[in-house]
């Protein structure tokens, strides 16, 4: 006999319920090849249950809502930027899709979340643009404006993997609406990612099972949080391949696309 939720069930029923769990984990919001951060859509997140070594799989808005933002109007201003009537100057947009791991405790927005509200963001793969500067036909020098090629990146032999995340529990002070939102923690690019995301040389902090467990449930001090946030997943365990430039509109965004190798040289480390 087995127990499910404290109820005595047959082994067959236990397996059925566990299979249902797994099916649900892949259901709906997990079954999505492409999540464009700038759409501020919802993403699948593992959120710890306080006081337990257990978690809920929930949907959160990808795009951290900091505690000091008052309502939707001020949130929109933060995200889109614009002229500041008080200063008469242009405020650039503040995008909080990603949180730089090394700076988690330097930012007012992220400090508390890094200590108390860590989560894992489930991913089946992500996208980055590789910048290529071909030689100018006349001068032979690299052109100034890069040609960008999109890549799909993931972890070999893993349908899903974990990215370190932080989340906020935000309440709209005007309407009372409650929103959970998250940011993906990033680290310095590994040998593969520094070739792909060669403009910024950053990558998401991808965690193996042990580190994911520690990030989610561990009672960690600042030093350890920063150590885990700086994790570089091994390049040799990841893959990256080019995809079509119109992948965002494609029904198969992860489909490989072959470019002329003269235009897009192969990566030095690739699957």
């Amino acid at each position, binding site marked *: *006999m087995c127990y*499910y*939720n*404290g*109820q*005595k*069930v*047959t082994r067959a*029923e236990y397996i*059925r*319920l566990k*299979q*249902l*769990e797994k*099916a*649900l984990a892949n*259901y709906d919001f997990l079954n999505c090849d492409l999540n464009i951060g700038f759409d501020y859509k919802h993403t699948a997140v593992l*959120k710890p*249950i306080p006081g*337990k070594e*257990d978690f*809920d*799989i*929930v949907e959160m808005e990808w795009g951290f809502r900091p505690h000091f933002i008052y309502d939707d109007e001020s949130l929109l201003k933060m995200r889109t930027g614009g002229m500041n009537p008080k200063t008469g100057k242009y405020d650039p947009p503040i995008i909080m899709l990603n949180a730089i791991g090394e700076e988690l405790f330097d930012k007012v927005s992220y400090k508390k979340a890094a200590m108390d509200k860590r989560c894992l963001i489930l991913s089946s793969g992500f996208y980055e643009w590789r910048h290529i500067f071909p030689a100018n036909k006349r001068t032979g020098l690299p052109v100034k404006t890069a040609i960008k090629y999109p890549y799909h990146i993931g972890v070999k032999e893993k349908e899903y993997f974990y990215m370190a995340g932080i989340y906020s529990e935000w309440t709209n002070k005007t309407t009372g609406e*409650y929103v959970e939102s998250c940011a993906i923690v990033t680290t310095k690019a590994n040998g593969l990612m520094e070739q792909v995301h060669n403009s910024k040389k950053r990558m998401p902090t991808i965690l193996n099972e042990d580190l994911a467990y520690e990030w989610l449930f561990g009672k960690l001090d600042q030093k350890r949080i920063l150590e885990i946030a700086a994790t570089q997943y091994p390049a040799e365990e990841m893959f990256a391949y080019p995809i079509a430039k119109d992948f965002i509109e494609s029904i198969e965004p992860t489909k490989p696309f072959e470019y002329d190798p003269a235009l897009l040289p192969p990566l030095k480390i690739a699957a």
Partner: protein
Amino acid sequence: MDGDNFELDFMGGRIKVQRRLVANQTVYIVAFSDKRNHLVLTRATADNANYFWTSVPEGRQREAEQVGPVIAEHIRNNQ
């Protein structure tokens, strides 16, 4: 609301319920009006062959036992 979505009174508030087929099994996804996360419910069979409501994944059995009978009553009344 349509047949797969309905709202019910529950403990002095309202809940929104979606009935979905996942892996050929019926589950009910319950949205509360408070801060709680969505609850996914299904009917399971105990080893004594009796049915019970349970949360999927595990961990919210008490809520499942509270909400499940309310959903069952709604289904009975609308058959």
